[in-house]
């Protein structure tokens, strides 16, 4: 239909929007990011470029030859064997075979091994098995292979863990108690992370991926950064990715600092500085998606944050482009038209070094 563009909402619903509405949404999205992050909005040229990407009549788009970037993931191969809650296919095959397939059939630039129970806490008890699985697979892979897991500090609070739940303490008005509980949980998490990484280091692990860092807030991120620093001290040759859980650091603790900088409220262009300082090799910003807004609004907003982050970064940045982040609609079977438009926009306008 002339004068209309087939696009989607943030929840994946297909909509046909008037061209001027698409452009208005792009402008509103970039201005929203600029206001939230105190960063520059997209230029008029970039807005035109983003409009062209979104309005492209082809179902699938791609970067221009020469603009290709490195793909890292948080379990792309694992999706072959995982089940529905992870968006997985549930194929009856081993994880190593899934990795070989991902490397050889899907032609990813890197591959990734992770456990089904994808957090450091449960991993600690079975790390010898995981180290063996990693070791076996690494003998057969040619592309770099990361081992990934979530810090997930929330698992250390009651009823799942040994530490008093800070949410209950907050509700009782015990702010100091809630902060102390988070500090205590952080120590348990630190011990588990360092134990797991040490075991993986001993089998020649090629890289560690801290996936969804800061999901329990600023106290969690602080410990992750301190762990990165410690890992780099012990094993400087261990590549590390830190991928975030959301666009700004939740202030669940409120007073957590890293090297004198308060973590709560940091946006990606601020996060990248401290993440670099810790010694991280690749940073993965994650920009939230608003399901009630259109895909053009969400993508413009995400690209604005990524561009500002890329402009100040000294390490490669790989925006997280899974379901519900960086413009990808919050829908289990992510629409391929949106996925490829996000990829192109993140690279060619956001200046991402990878995805």
């Amino acid at each position, binding site marked *: 239909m002339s004068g209309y563009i087939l696009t989607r909402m943030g929840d994946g619903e297909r909509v046909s929007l008037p061209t001027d509405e698409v452009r208005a949404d792009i402008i509103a999205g970039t201005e929203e990011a600029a206001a939230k992050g105190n960063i520059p909005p997209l230029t008029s040229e970039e807005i035109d470029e983003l409009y062209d990407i979104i309005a492209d009549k082809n179902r699938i788009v791609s970067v221009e030859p*020469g603009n290709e970037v490195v793909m890292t993931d948080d379990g792309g191969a694992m999706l072959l064997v995982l089940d529905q809650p992870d968006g997985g296919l549930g194929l009856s095959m081993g994880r190593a075979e899934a990795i070989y397939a991902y490397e050889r059939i899907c032609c990813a630039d890197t591959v990734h091994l992770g456990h089904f129970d994808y957090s450091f806490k449960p991993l600690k008890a079975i790390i010898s098995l995981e180290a063996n699985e990693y070791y076996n697979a690494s003998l057969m892979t040619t592309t770099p292979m990361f081992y990934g897991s979530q810090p997930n500090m929330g698992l250390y609070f009651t009823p799942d863990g040994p530490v008093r739940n800070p949410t209950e303490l907050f509700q009782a008005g015990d702010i100091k108690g809630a902060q102390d509980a988070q500090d205590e949980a952080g120590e348990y998490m630190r011990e588990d992370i360092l134990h797991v990484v040490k075991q993986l280091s001993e089998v020649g692990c090629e890289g560690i991926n801290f996936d969804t860092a800061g999901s329990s807030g600023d106290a969690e991120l602080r410990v992750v950064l301190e762990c990165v620093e410690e890992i780099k001290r012990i094993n400087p040759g261990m590549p590390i990715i830190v991928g975030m859980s959301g666009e700004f650091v939740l202030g669940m603790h409120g007073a957590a600092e890293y090297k004198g900088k308060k973590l709560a409220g940091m946006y990606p262009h601020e996060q990248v500085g401290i993440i670099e300082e810790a010694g991280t090799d690749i940073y993965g910003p994650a920009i939230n998606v608003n399901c009630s807004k259109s895909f053009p609004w969400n993508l413009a907003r995400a690209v604005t944050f990524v561009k500002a982050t890329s402009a100040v970064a000294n390490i490669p940045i790989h925006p997280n482009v899974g379901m519900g982040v960086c413009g990808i609609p919050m829908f289990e079977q992510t629409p391929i038209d949106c996925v490829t438009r996000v990829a192109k926009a993140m690279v060619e306008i956001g200046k991402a070094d990878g995805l």
Partner: protein
Amino acid sequence: MPIAHVMASGIGGMRTAGDLVAWMQMSKKMRINEAKQYVADKLGIAVIDLANEEVMREIREDLDIGLITAIAGKVKGIAAKKRIADLLEITIPSVEMFKAKLN
């Protein structure tokens, strides 16, 4: 979804030079343009050809650094990574461990 991303903006992994560029980001924190230029210089090709199957297939076969298709007798896995580490002049942890086991 990961496959869509790989096809839309990935370098191509072992089909081309995707793994080589990834190693430079991981081992030297190189941003994308620097990493691609470094690998292109090592291979003696233009940056645009890093994702060009027609060029990279022959280079990978000549250098024996791992191919996407199966050829018996060509290097695979850890042996390919050892040759890649030498080519790019980087340290790969799994290769270092493998070499230590041979001594």
